[in-house]
């Protein structure tokens, strides 16, 4: 098949140099409608989370009960109905956004930072260091993540901080593997050797010369990781090991709704939809970023 001819004239060349890699990525990203939908949803969720935190008062709007008015099905006053304490489900779902986002983003930041560092260090030093790090990763990858999460949550108690660490730690090996695989081909390149010869410190070489090569897969994995982390967090909350009540975490709301599925199905539907939309948005974003960062991979 005939390829499109890419003649570059001189003026274009100038523009190309000035335009940074990120502008290029953004240009590619913008072209992808589903990725843009994902981005819009994520931005909207962040706004909702911030708005809910400012607008609603935790003690009165979220915790306060109105037992007389429980199980009001969705209506004009309570869009998503009320729960078994007569609390407004719509308010709680909005407020819950902040928990999912915070847990998702912070726990993935933990795994991303730890994992990428381990991966890059393993790849850079090689030999026994690499062996030890990667074998430890193998061990943790081998344990089903939910069960590991359950064990960690039991050991350190239920709180949002423990939850973030638990999920963060569970996904460290994945990031380590990705980072290592991405920088491995660079390790033996001559410019690294050259940097070492002129006395650049190991740390500097890793950060300046090696890490950038792993950036694309790590960014994609981070975005997708947020989606995964939110799912895992809601799963743990569902098992009663996540963020403690009365915090309106979506998974916990689902767990509470279990006894009422027969007559009050709406209690199950809305928090679940919220989880699904959030996770979907991050997945769409991750997918779009993958395509944007590496147009060659675009399928």
């Amino acid at each position, binding site marked *: *098949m*005939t*390829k*499109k*001819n890419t*003649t570059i004239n001189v003026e274009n060349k100038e523009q190309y140099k000035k335009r940074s890699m990120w502008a290029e990525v953004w240009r590619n990203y913008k072209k992808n409608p589903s990725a843009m939908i994902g981005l819009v949803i994520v931005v909207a969720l962040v706004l909702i989370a911030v708005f809910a935190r400012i607008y609603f008062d935790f003690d009165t709007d979220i915790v306060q009960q109105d037992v007389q008015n429980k199980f009001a099905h969705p209506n004009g006053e309570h869009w998503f109905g009320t729960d078994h304490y007569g609390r407004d489900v719509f308010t709680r779902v909005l407020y819950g956004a902040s928990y999912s986002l915070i847990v998702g983003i912070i726990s993935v930041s933990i795994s991303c930072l730890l994992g990428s560092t381990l991966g890059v260090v393993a790849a850079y030093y090689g030999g026994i260091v690499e062996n030890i790090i990667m074998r430890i990763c193998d061990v943790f990858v081998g344990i089903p993540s939910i069960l590991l999460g359950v064990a960690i949550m039991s050991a350190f108690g239920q709180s949002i901080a423990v939850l973030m660490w638990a999920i963060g730690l569970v996904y460290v090996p994945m990031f380590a593997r990705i980072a290592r695989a991405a920088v491995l081909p660079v390790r033996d390149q001559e410019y690294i050797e050259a940097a070492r010869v002129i006395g650049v410190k190991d740390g500097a070489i890793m950060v300046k010369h090696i890490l950038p090569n792993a950036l694309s897969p790590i960014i994609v994995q981070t975005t997708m990781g947020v989606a995964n982390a939110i799912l895992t967090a809601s799963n743990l909350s569902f098992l009663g090991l996540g963020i403690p009540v009365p915090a309106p975490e979506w998974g916990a709301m689902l767990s509470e709704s279990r006894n009422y599925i027969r007559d009050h199905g709406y209690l199950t539907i809305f928090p679940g939809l919220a989880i699904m939309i959030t996770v979907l948005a991050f997945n769409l974003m991750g997918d779009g970023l993958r395509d944007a960062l590496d147009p060659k991979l675009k399928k």
Partner: protein
Amino acid sequence: MSEKDLVLDLKNLNVKFVTEDATVYAINGLNMELERGKAIGLVGETGAGKTTTALSLLRLVQSPPGVVECDKMEINGKDVLTMGIKDLESMRGKDISMIFQDPMTALNPVFTVGEQIAESVFLHENCTKEEANQRAIEMLELVGIPGERAGEYPHQFSGGMKQRVVIAIALACHPQLLIADEPTTALDVTIQAQVLDMMKNLREQYQTSLIMITHDLGIVAEICDEVAVMYAGTVVEKGTLEDVFNHTKHPYTEGLFNSLPNINDRKAKLTPIKGLMPDPSNLPEGCAFHPRCPYATEACKQPQHLRQISDTHYVVCDRYNEPDFHIEREEK
């Protein structure tokens, strides 16, 4: 002209690829005829549309985005244009078959080479699986690979060996017309010679007609009876070896010869054709070659016409309307 025994008769082939961004005009009004038993070389730069032409003949141009239009396309006397998918499938591999450029990727990695040859035989010849396997082994031996290696997988073969396997597959059902798409480009020079030699012998043995797609004029000289020079999706000059090599008419053909190193005069400077192939989504008006042509005039921006120089020699260049026009190469 009409009583010729033509194995290929192609009139006014147009292929375009329609995508969101642009429409790429890959083949523009291409004509080609080939007599039974003859070999024609299809020469041109990368991107001239040689492979697309070949795929069009097999009706394997991906659609979408490809759109194939043609006035007449007959292979071995059968009208390929109106054929149903079943007939097309029974035609491919039997009447016409093709050798692809890159032997490294042309073979399916999960089947043994024997299976891949036998599959073709089994599909087209009315025979049992055993007979097909037997034939596959014979074919392997024919292309110089020990028959016992039929049970091996492609990754166990070297590049040259793989190309032999590809050739074995293509020739397994003794097709009337064989298209070889740069069969030796991916191979070492020594292997190239072996493979070419083998192809020449086999072609003579089976009386197969051949379209040899290449950018290497040397190969054409060795194997072909006729030459068609392609530029920007159309044939600009066509004739016998003698016609095109010694009585070059078209400025582009001349450019091609000039960019070859001259063994007799090693001090002579190479004169490459200046500029690049035009963007096929945005072809120049008239003769597609005129922006690069040293002889170009204003008239070249008008649609060009086919001009018959002799019984066998054709050229598409309206400068020959001027009685005393000639190109430099002719003077020598």
